[in-house]
């Protein structure tokens, strides 16, 4: 007993001593070389291959190419990063550069913390010219660019091969085919369990936009200033109406708290089809490696085959060490970095990287075609509130509190107001 205690005490002393030594080392001035450290916040998860590539391949390469600049990369959870940037903006402790979900940029721009790159960086046009226009459009707010496209994604159709074959349903290519396929694939399976033709895990823009757009509807006007006449247009109403009636027929589910989670439902043959992004391939590979499924483009309706654009931009905050930060942003969007990241499933936005053989043969190749026609959700600061109102409106339709037309008319009024703020 006594010996144990003694041992513990010694261990503690050693730990404390070494900690203080580290602290002393960290505090000792290093003035020999004028070194700049830039902070880079991102949401590549800490255990992921992406993070591994970033830390072991990309940053060492950048640091060796740019002596005197060190990169301190910090990983956050997706939602936590958003909140953390919000709070840090208030306290003035922002990083130099961050990888931001494309949906966040308008908010951050409105807070006045982002650097308008096209104004401050003389070689902006050269750098942005190397990247896909659709990706760069996500960084454009009003007349200026506040970031560089970093990686992109969209959702395409995932279908369960066995379920389609058993039901004698062909892979749908048009909206009409999709709707009849969803109905045909629903019902009960051999074990008497309920099965659904379609899984939709939410009632937000990310979930509903592909339907609205493919039906030929829209959310707002081109300038993103008015919603009346767009979100409540006949085409938009028809899209939501179709969606809701599929739910009411028991052909579609997924957004209720009590529903089977998406990957599990699809992996256990309970959901026949879904619209999902490139990350789902790895997820299904890990959780349900034996599942036979296929992918196809988003079925085309009157508005064509239009899926929703996701992805990330890399942006600089106005407290940044701008020169070094800009160098790092250029590096992260260079073909070298983009190809390395493509190896871990990140879809590049660099045009020459997209021509590379590794990229063309990657698992996400089917998504590359869909990205060309995919559309971004409105790039306005009020989007998160608009998104919430959309969820509320569609829930009211589902609960039978309002008719689709009524709910979308009301929603258009609310959106109009949010868009003027």
């Amino acid at each position, binding site marked *: 007993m006594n010996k144990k205690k003694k041992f513990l005490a010694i261990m503690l002393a050693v730990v404390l001593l070494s900690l203080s030594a580290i602290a002393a080392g960290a505090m000792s001035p290093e003035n020999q070389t004028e070194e700049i450290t830039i902070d880079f916040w991102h949401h590549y998860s800490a255990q992921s291959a992406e993070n591994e590539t970033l830390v072991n391949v990309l940053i060492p390469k950048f640091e060796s190419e740019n002596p005197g600049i060190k990169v301190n990369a910090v990983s956050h959870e997706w939602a936590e990063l958003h909140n953390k940037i919000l709070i840090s903006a208030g306290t003035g402790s922002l990083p130099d550069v961050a990888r931001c979900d494309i949906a966040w940029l308008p908010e951050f721009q409105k*807070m006045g913390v982002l650097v308008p790159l096209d104004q401050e960086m003389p070689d902006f046009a050269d750098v942005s010219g190397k990247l896909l226009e659709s990706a760069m459009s996500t960084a454009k707010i009003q007349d200026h660019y506040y970031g560089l496209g970093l990686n992109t994604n969209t959702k395409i159709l995932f279908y369960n091969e066995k379920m389609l074959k058993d039901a004698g349903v062909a892979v749908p290519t048009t909206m009409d085919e999709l709707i009849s396929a969803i109905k045909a694939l629903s019902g009960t399976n051999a074990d008497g369990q309920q099965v659904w033709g379609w899984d939709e895990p939410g009632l937000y823009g990310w979930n509903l936009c592909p339907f609205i757009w493919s039906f030929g509807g829209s959310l707002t006007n081109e300038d993103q200033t008015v919603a009346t006449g767009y979100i409540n247009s006949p085409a938009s109403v028809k899209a939501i109406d179709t969606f809701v009636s599929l739910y009411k027929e028991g052909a579609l589910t997924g957004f209720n708290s009590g529903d089977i989670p998406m990957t599990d439902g699809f992996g256990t043959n309970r959901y026949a089809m879904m619209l999902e992004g490139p990350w789902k391939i790895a997820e299904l590979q890990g959780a349900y490696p034996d599942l036979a499924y296929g992918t196809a483009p988003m079925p085309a309706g009157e508005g064509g085959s239009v899926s929703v654009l996701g992805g990330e931009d890399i942006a600089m905050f106005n407290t940044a060490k701008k020169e070094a930060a800009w160098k790092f942003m250029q590096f992260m969007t260079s073909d070298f970095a983009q190809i390395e990241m493509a190896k871990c499933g990140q879809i590049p936005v660099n045009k020459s990287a997209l021509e590379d053989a590794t990229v063309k043969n990657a698992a996400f190749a089917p998504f590359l075609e869909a990205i060309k026609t995919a559309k971004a959700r409105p790039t306005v600061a009020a989007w998160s509130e608009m998104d919430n109102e959309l969820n509320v409106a569609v829930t009211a339709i589902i609960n039978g509190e309002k008719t689709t037309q009524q709910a979308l008319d009301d929603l258009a009024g609310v959106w109009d107001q949010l868009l003027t703020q």
Partner: protein
Amino acid sequence: MKTKSNKNKIQIFLLLLPGLAVFCFFTVYPIIKLFLMSFSKWDFTSMRQQEFIGLQNYREVLADKFFWTSFTNTIVYTLVTVPLQMILGLFVAILVNGIKKFQVTFRVLNYLPVITSWVIASLIFRYVFNTEGLLNYFLSQVLHVTASNIRWLDSRWSGLTVAMILGIWKGIGWNMVIFLAALQQVPIDLYEAAAIDGCNGIQKFFKITLPGIKGTILFVWVMLTIGGFNVFTSIKMITGGNPAHQTDTILTWMYYKAFSTGKFGYSAAVSFIMAFTLGIMAIFQFKAMRNRDRELEEIG
């Protein structure tokens, strides 16, 4: 003499200083700051400079139908869970108090839910009440009461009920421990005297036990009311406020507004409205208890 007492005062002050500093820095300062925040325009557009806008945040909160939904949900949650926790807790306490053997075992068993993590308990409840969860399996496959699965988590009141059941289940143990301590404070001779006078068990409970633990009842009542208003984890984990904020409570709504939409001023106003409501309720509770005191004295 005087110098000595002054010296003492300095000493006392110095000894209190660390605690006071921590208290001021981490409790008083944030409250003041939050109070100021509730009168400022504090959102995405004004992270750096906050404009004083008077009562506008409060007006916005009070005109918001989602706030009133969450407010009603919180009131209902409190009205249901507080009395049930107290009654069941007292009931268990009396049972445990009455037995000679295995008292410790039963105390521990009843206290176990209290020390279970809220997150884990919530996830398990979610699993049980899922549309394809254990409860529906039991109802449809074992008991054959329902043909189709019931959507427990997907509507306002049934979703809240699940959270309430969790709250009650987790609260009974705490109530039991507090009431157990109180029960042991009631003088035994009172019961003996009552027995001689020919009182039955029910009379003893209402005439001796309840008046004897009145102070504790008030304490528990006030604490649980505050706890009921603070319900957050279970709602966040079980329904997440879905569908469309219909199961949000004040705190989950406040959290949503602050961290998902960046309306910090609005959320600060919500928090002060909640504190104000709790203050009013505490005053009311103390008054009600005191009135009852007086009535009892008059009867006695």
